[in-house]
């Protein structure tokens, strides 16, 4: 305050001093006999620019660095306000770049960089064995047998705990609902180091087979379904039709495994015929290393090794949690970084052009005594203001961006999304990025803009002095073109890959199908017969819905996320070891409903009942593989390793192969059995009902819900929707990736086009005089356009060349995200280069056409 007041006072005094100088000069001239007006005019001319003199004098007062900075900032704000177009373009370009980068950083930081929200989470490991030779075990883990044998023998871990995820139906607490749950060993929460918010966790007694059913609730479920009632502990809730006592409630934000809503004790009943794969985590003992843990796991695997070859693995828990999104997140982060670089290059270019037009101002100021350092400082302050403003705006963009990202990302595909938010770290990042890029990209134009000598600047016009800057601006645009090309190539690859994914022949016709999936709990439907009766009841009701042409059922629907795969025995033939087929069970009419072609024989009918002889339908590739050149109808196969007389299934039909598990896996061999002939409830509980609609399948969904409710009002719907949306959901992630990278690359392309336009337009403006002379000397329009386009080619050719090299070097990181297209696909590269060249030509043509219309008279007069 006082400093400010003192400064104002001094300002007034300086004003008075300079005015008295002027007055004395006038008086003296008058005294010499000049006319008063002449004297005033002469004195004023002699005095020079009052404002500049004041400004220069004020600079001598110096003051503290803060005062000087405040002065620079005031002056900078004033200059920026004087050219609003420049300021708005620069600010919004930077804000977009910084905002997008910050948004991406926020996600990367929360998902990949921040430690998991458990105490000393870096000591948490996942313990697993891989079974490289086993055809059945595709995902590593620890078998229930191995877990029971070894759980108390680990020495390198202070605690270990096993769990397995599952689904459970909650009833009598609002609408029936299907929930993600986890069965966990006692000590899981303690291993993670998280205590319950209410009640207690599981003890060893809770693991006993036959012990009282108990459950621990997640915070979100507790709030949604139990009104955050703290007396819920000790009450009973109904899960899969069985009453469970609530033992406790976990605190907010506790999420392990990521999507579990509630936890039940893991009760292991070993069976010689079945293996259960468990997910085991452990807390590494202080001083123990991962290598020691691996060695211990390896040593403990003797029993397993007797059965199969195993590889022990100990992986930091965080890596297993974030696992497969790491690559795509890093790709996005790289892409967004390129956008930021392009944005900065663009603004640096704007600053350079501005510096050129302001060179006379700078030269005059420096002639009048302002030091170069002072001018550089002034220009850097101006840039810093731009970048800081953009950083603040960018933080806003980031908040919106993070929300949009999470909303657009396919559900459940971003792990730890509950932890994502624009926090102080992200804000600091935004500020750091803006300051860093601002200093680098703001300093170059400042140094360039003030370096020329006074005499050069004053004697020359802007036209003749831009050679050096022209090259720098050109280099920046070349860099922009190259970066944009890299991004565009990445985007084009992702889009092309997505298109190919969508073009995959699924083997069935999804259009017109609607799908309803349920999980019938064993507790309510104790026998296969009970389940089959329920299926039939639902099918009967579905078939009566107006607009339904066909209704059928399948336990593991293609692309439904679950599939049974196994080996088979063939009567009278040996098959290659490790030959696995998918094994769905279906109702009569399934193939017609799905639109799966029947090649030979017949479909299942109601006559293929539990009492009749067991039948099977095989897919074409099975028929070709097992009975090449033979008629498979009437042949016999079995699911049993050593089939008894009643275990043989007779082939009655051959159908087309279908993409069963995912759209990008190849179509798989399959054997189908009629659901009426399935005897294990395990293969009947999970059931999808498929209907083929006469019209729009979406219109049938309410009636389908009603049909299920009529059969069992307590049965929640697992999922419902059209088959087309189910198919789209399986490609939601590549679609999201393609869209996101596509959006980034469009921004990059637009920015690069603006950069090209700016540089070409500027070179036209500089050369108006020259163009005028050429036109006056008889150059035609075409010649002028050619001349301007030559400038464009000089930018484009090296830009595209560098971009192609860059793309070849970097798109390799995409290979794991791509489907049936190689990252160096030449057609894509050429296409992108042509597109970029076309856009650049359009951007460059606009100023070229303007140049061709230059009127030589005007150009020569004003040049």
């Amino acid at each position, binding site marked *: 305050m006082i400093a400010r007041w003192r400064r104002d006072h001094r300002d007034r*005094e*300086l004003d*008075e*001093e*300079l005015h*008295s*100088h002027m*007055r*004395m*000069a006038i*008086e*003296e001239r008058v005294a010499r006999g000049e006319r008063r007006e002449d004297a005033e005019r002469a004195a004023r001319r*002699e*005095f*020079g*620019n009052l404002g*500049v*003199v004041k400004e*220069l*004098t004020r*600079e*001598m*007062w*110096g003051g503290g660095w803060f005062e000087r900075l405040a002065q620079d900032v005031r002056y900078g704000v004033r200059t920026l306000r004087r050219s609003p177009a420049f300021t708005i373009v620069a600010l919004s370009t930077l804000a977009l770049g910084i905002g997008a980068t910050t948004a991406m950083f926020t996600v990367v930081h929360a998902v990949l960089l921040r430690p998991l929200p458990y105490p000393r989470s870096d000591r948490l490991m996942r313990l697993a064995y891989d079974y490289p030779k086993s055809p059945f075990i595709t995902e590593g883990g620890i078998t229930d047998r191995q877990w029971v044998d070894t759980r108390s023998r680990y020495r390198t871990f202070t605690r270990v705990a096993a769990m397995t995820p599952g689904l459970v139906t909650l009833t009598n607490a609002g609408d029936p609902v299907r929930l993600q749950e986890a069965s966990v060993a006692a000590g899981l929460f303690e291993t993670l180091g998280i205590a319950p918010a209410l009640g207690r966790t599981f003890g060893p007694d809770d693991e006993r087979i036959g012990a009282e059913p108990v459950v621990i609730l997640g915070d979100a479920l507790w709030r949604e379904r139990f009104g955050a009632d703290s007396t819920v502990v000790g009450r009973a809730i109904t899960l899969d039709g069985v009453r469970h006592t609530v033992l406790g409630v976990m605190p907010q934000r506790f999420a392990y495994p990521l999507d579990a809503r509630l936890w039940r004790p893991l009760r292991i009943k070993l069976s010689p015929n079945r293996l259960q794969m468990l997910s085991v985590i452990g807390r590494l003992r202080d001083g123990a290393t991962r290598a020691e843990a691996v060695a211990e796991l390896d040593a403990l695997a003797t029993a397993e090794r007797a059965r199969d070859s195993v590889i022990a693995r100990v992986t930091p828990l965080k890596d297993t949690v974030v696992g497969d999104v790491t690559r795509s997140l890093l790709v996005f982060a790289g892409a967004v970084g390129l956008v930021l670089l392009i944005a900065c290059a663009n603004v640096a270019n704007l600053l350079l052009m501005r510096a050129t037009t302001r060179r006379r101002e700078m030269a005059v100021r*420096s*002639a*009048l*005594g302002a*030091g*170069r350092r002072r001018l550089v400082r002034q220009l850097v302050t101006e840039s810093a203001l731009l970048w800081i403003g953009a950083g603040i705006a960018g933080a806003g963009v980031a908040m919106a961006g993070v929300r949009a990202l999470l909303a657009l990302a396919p559900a459940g595909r971003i792990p730890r999304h509950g932890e994502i938010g624009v926090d102080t770290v992200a804000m600091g990042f935004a500020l750091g990025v803006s300051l860093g890029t601002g200093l680098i990209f703001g300093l170059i134009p400042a140094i360039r803009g003030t370096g020329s000598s006074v005499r050069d600047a004053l004697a020359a016009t802007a036209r003749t002095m831009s050679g050096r800057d022209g090259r720098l601006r050109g280099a920046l645009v070349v860099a922009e073109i190259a970066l944009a090309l890299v991004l565009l190539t990445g985007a084009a690859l992702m889009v092309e890959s997505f298109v190919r994914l969508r073009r995959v022949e699924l083997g069935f016709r999804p259009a017109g199908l609607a799908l309803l999936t349920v999980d019938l709990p064993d507790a309510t439907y104790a026998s296969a017969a009970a389940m089959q009766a329920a299926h039939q009841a639902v099918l009967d009701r579905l078939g009566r819905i107006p607009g339904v042409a066909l209704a059928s059922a399948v336990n593991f629907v293609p692309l439904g996320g679950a599939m049974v795969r196994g080996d088979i025995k063939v009567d009278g033939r040996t098959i290659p070891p490790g030959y696995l087929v998918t094994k769905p069970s279906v109702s009569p009419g399934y193939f017609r409903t799905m639109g799966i072609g029947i090649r030979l024989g017949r479909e299942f009918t109601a006559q293929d009942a539990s009492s009749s002889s067991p039948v099977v339908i095989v897919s074409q590739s099975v028929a070709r593989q097992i009975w090449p050149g033979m008629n498979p109808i009437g042949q016999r196969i079995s699911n049993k390793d050593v089939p008894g007389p009643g275990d043989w299934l007779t082939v009655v039909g051959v159908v087309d192969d279908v993409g069963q598990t995912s759209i990008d896996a190849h179509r798989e061999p399959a054997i189908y059995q009629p659901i009426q002939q399935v005897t294990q409830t395990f293969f009947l509980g999970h059931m999808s009902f498929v209907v083929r609609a006469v019209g729009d399948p979406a219109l049938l969904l309410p009636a389908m819900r009603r049909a299920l409710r009529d059969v069992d009002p307590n049965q929640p719907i697992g999922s419902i929707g059209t088959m087309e949306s189910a198919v789209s959901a399986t490609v939601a992630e590549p679609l999201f990736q393609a869209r996101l990278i596509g959006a980034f690359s469009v921004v990059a392309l637009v920015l690069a086009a603006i950069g090209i336009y700016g540089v070409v337009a500027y070179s036209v403006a500089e050369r108006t005089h020259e163009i005028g002379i050429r036109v006056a000397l008889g150059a035609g329009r075409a010649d002028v356009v050619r001349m301007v386009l030559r400038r464009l080619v000089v930018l484009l050719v090296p830009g595209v060349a560098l971009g192609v090299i860059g793309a070849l070097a970097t798109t390799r990181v995409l290979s794991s995200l791509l489907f049936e297209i190689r990252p160096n696909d030449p057609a894509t590269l050429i296409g992108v280069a042509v597109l970029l060249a076309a856009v650049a030509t359009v951007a460059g043509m606009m100023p070229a056409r303007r140049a061709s219309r230059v009127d030589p008279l005007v150009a020569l007069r004003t040049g």
Partner: protein
Amino acid sequence: MAKPQRGLSRIELLQGTLDLIVLQTLRWGPRHGYGIAQMIRASSRDVLQVDTGSLYPALHRLEKSGAIAAEWETSENRQRVRVYRLTAAGRKQLDAERSRWEQLSEAMAGIFAPPAPEAEA
């Protein structure tokens, strides 16, 4: 011989010279800005015309460095004018800079003088 100053820009050289001229002018007594400008002009026989954009920054710079002091006085036609006078520090600075200047001009004179015969073989 004065130590050669490296990296001095032309502007700074001019500044130094202007400081010397201003100090020298004030040696003959306190004066206001306009008076100083007039006096420089007169005593250099109109060769040096200091423009206000250099003079006032120089005056305020010298005031800040303590070489000169300023106060407001009322002139004979009853106007407030800011009058500068040399301080003791200014006098010392003037002496120093003048001897430097003299050395420089001697050196310059030497350079322009016909070369002396070589003394050594």
